[in-house]
């Protein structure tokens, strides 16, 4: 009994296909092919061709303008070498910004003075340790000039960098002068 609906469905499907195939299709007119060929192979009138060419040029120009705009915007957003803003971004809050500063400092120790480094101790001209905000812990020292590379590297590389800086100062009689901006 369960096969009856299937048989009925198959029968109706066959009837549907037969009915569709038996549907009358008009005979094409004798000049059907000739008219099609005439229409297809005839060159398009010059206004149509001109519009098509103009459209191609306009689309190419628009694409080029958009790409140039993106490129200019991207170049303008790049930080300049040695800029104080290198690596600073409002999108890096707190500890993330400190991590960015540390990375940048390790790769470019002379070019960066920012963020976390401002609060790290630095060596002043007298060899003492001063606060990043310029307030020295030694009385009489009011140095707040540019930071030397040693004092930047010092906190990051630990005591070794400090010892190297001290050794150079002692050996050559040169203090860790603010000769590097």
């Amino acid at each position, binding site marked *: 009994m369960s096969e009856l609906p299937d048989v*009925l*469905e198959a029968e*109706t*499907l066959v*009837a*549907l*296909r*037969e*009915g*569709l*195939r*038996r*549907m*009358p*299709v*008009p005979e*094409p*007119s004798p000049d*059907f*092919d000739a*008219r*099609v*060929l005439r*229409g*297809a*192979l005839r060159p*398009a009138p010059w206004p149509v061709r001109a519009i098509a060419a103009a459209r191609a040029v306009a689309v190419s120009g628009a694409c080029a303008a958009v790409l140039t705009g993106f490129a200019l915007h991207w170049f303008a957003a790049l930080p300049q070498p040695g800029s104080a803003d290198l690596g600073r971004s409002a999108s890096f809050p707190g500890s993330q910004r400190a991590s960015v500063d540390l990375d940048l400092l390790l790769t470019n120790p002379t070019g960066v003075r920012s963020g976390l480094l401002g609060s790290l101790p630095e060596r002043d001209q007298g060899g003492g340790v001063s606060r990043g905000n310029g307030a020295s812990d030694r009385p009489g020292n009011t140095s707040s000039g540019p930071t030397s590379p040693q004092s930047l590297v010092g906190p990051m590389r630990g005591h070794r960098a400090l010892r190297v800086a001290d050794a150079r100062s002692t050996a050559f009689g040169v203090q860790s002068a603010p000769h590097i901006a």
Partner: protein
Amino acid sequence: MAAHVATCEGLPGAGGAQQTDACELATVARAARGDPEACSWLLSRYRGRVLRLATMILRSADEAEDAAQESFIRAFRGLSSFRGPLGFYTWLCRITVRTCLDHQRKRRPPRLEVRAPHAGDAEDAAVSRLVVQALLDQLSAPVRAALVLREVDGLEYQEIARVVGVPVGTVRSRLHSARARFRELYLDAMQEADRV
């Protein structure tokens, strides 16, 4: 070129579908370069199928011929945009369906042509033909196109979806509904014929 066309015409059935497709693609490439012989070969091969599809969609012989001509002209002019994987007939069907839908939009109200069964038809065949006519009148143009492409031309659901421009699932469900509707109409018609 004449030899090439003659070779292509001898292919179906003997050389297999792949060889036929390769030959057809070569002919399409020639037609794209403006070869009238290649265009004629494509016309002779697909004229009947395109005309039938247009007739089923538009339900008017005169409009169907106009739409079929316009479809071929559009296709030959746009052959440079034809890409092989879709298949030339599927691509041509898509153009035909769009052209027919454009014609249908311009025409208000639709003209319906109901024909009496031919004298030579068997009774069941005549009933099925009339029921099919009634069914086609009830369906929308895209569903009519999908039905013809599936049941007469044997296109896959995915190809029909590309032609009609709807998802495959929509094609399946619409064709299922159309078949169910035909079944209702057909059973009613058969019962009525038995009663008479």
